[in-house]
């Protein structure tokens, strides 16, 4: 299978599963009702932990550290990250946070 074909399969399976996750339990809930309620606390805790755990790993992978021993690059990434976190905490806006992070990363590139 070529790369595009494989990509389409990945997307189709990911989207199909996501859609099932949205409609499946809803349909079950309308049929089974609150009998499943006793497990909901544990599944909620697991989901609450799993999503940030996977995101923190993806964040580590996404950090643009092209040269591991370039200390100036570390300072640039660290500075932009701290600023992004401060903006995220203060504004609670995804769009503004991402834009501020990008701007900080760009401005800090001038220290090189």
């Amino acid at each position, binding site marked *: 299978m070529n790369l595009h074909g494989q990509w389409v399969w990945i997307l189709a399976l*990911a989207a199909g599963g996501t859609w099932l996750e*949205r409609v499946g339990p809803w349909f079950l809930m309308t049929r089974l009702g609150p009998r499943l309620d006793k497990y909901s606390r*544990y599944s909620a805790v*697991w989901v609450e932990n*799993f999503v940030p755990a*996977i995101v923190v790993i993806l964040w580590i992978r996404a950090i643009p550290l092209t040269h591991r021993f370039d200390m100036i690059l570390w300072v640039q990434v660290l500075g932009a990250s701290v600023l992004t976190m401060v903006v*995220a905490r203060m504004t609670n806006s995804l*769009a503004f946070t991402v834009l501020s992070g990008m701007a900080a990363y*760009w401005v800090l590139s001038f220290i090189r």
Partner: protein
Amino acid sequence: MPNKENKQKRFVSQGLQDGFPIFLGYLPPSMAFGMMAQQFHWAPWQILLTSAILYAGTSQFVLLSLTAAHSPGWSSVITIWLVNLRHVAYGPALTLAHSQKRRSLLEILSIGWGLTDEVFATVCQPVEHKSRDERIYLLAVAILAYGGWIGGTALGIGVGQSMLHEIPHASYALGFSLPALFLYILVSAVMHQKRWQWQRIKLLFAASILYLILKAAGVGMISILLSALIVSIQGVVSFSRITAGKRGEGVEL
């Protein structure tokens, strides 16, 4: 009959009013997705198709990141399912919020595809309007939100290209867009009512360390999924121990 038609119109108008903030809110991140995917050399049809059929903000960026890292196909699919697993709770919660309203399969299929975080948060608010559990109202909110996501993605593809051509610095700055997006999600996850959740920060630290160890051990891309699974299951075990301890002490949970 005219009375029924008027009611329907009112539900649609209410849905459009409630969906408009989501429409606006979806434009910037979907534009960022359109622009970022181009940076990863995705074709416009791939970008639009992803937004159209996956339609799940975080996991679209995750897919982008995993594809760029040449992650194995099945691992990417499972990771996305697990990232979106929170959606599992939305339908049942809506059923409870709407007084156990029994919906038909067709109704659930038609509304369920659009049940994103923001749509869920909007339609699952405390019911002060009777309209919130009406199918036509839910559809209006979902369709408007979907329009915002697709429109923003298309705009990101169109405007993004010319912007990157005119301003080459934007291309450099985009290198930090994905880490910034993940940082935003992390800050939201570890903050609750303006307080740091130290338990969760410890969990994130454990996940990072475990991932780095597994990666150094040469486990490969599955180390992402494995580390997150181990740490999140450990989180549930701790939670059940704490709740069991409180029950033993006679604390009402």
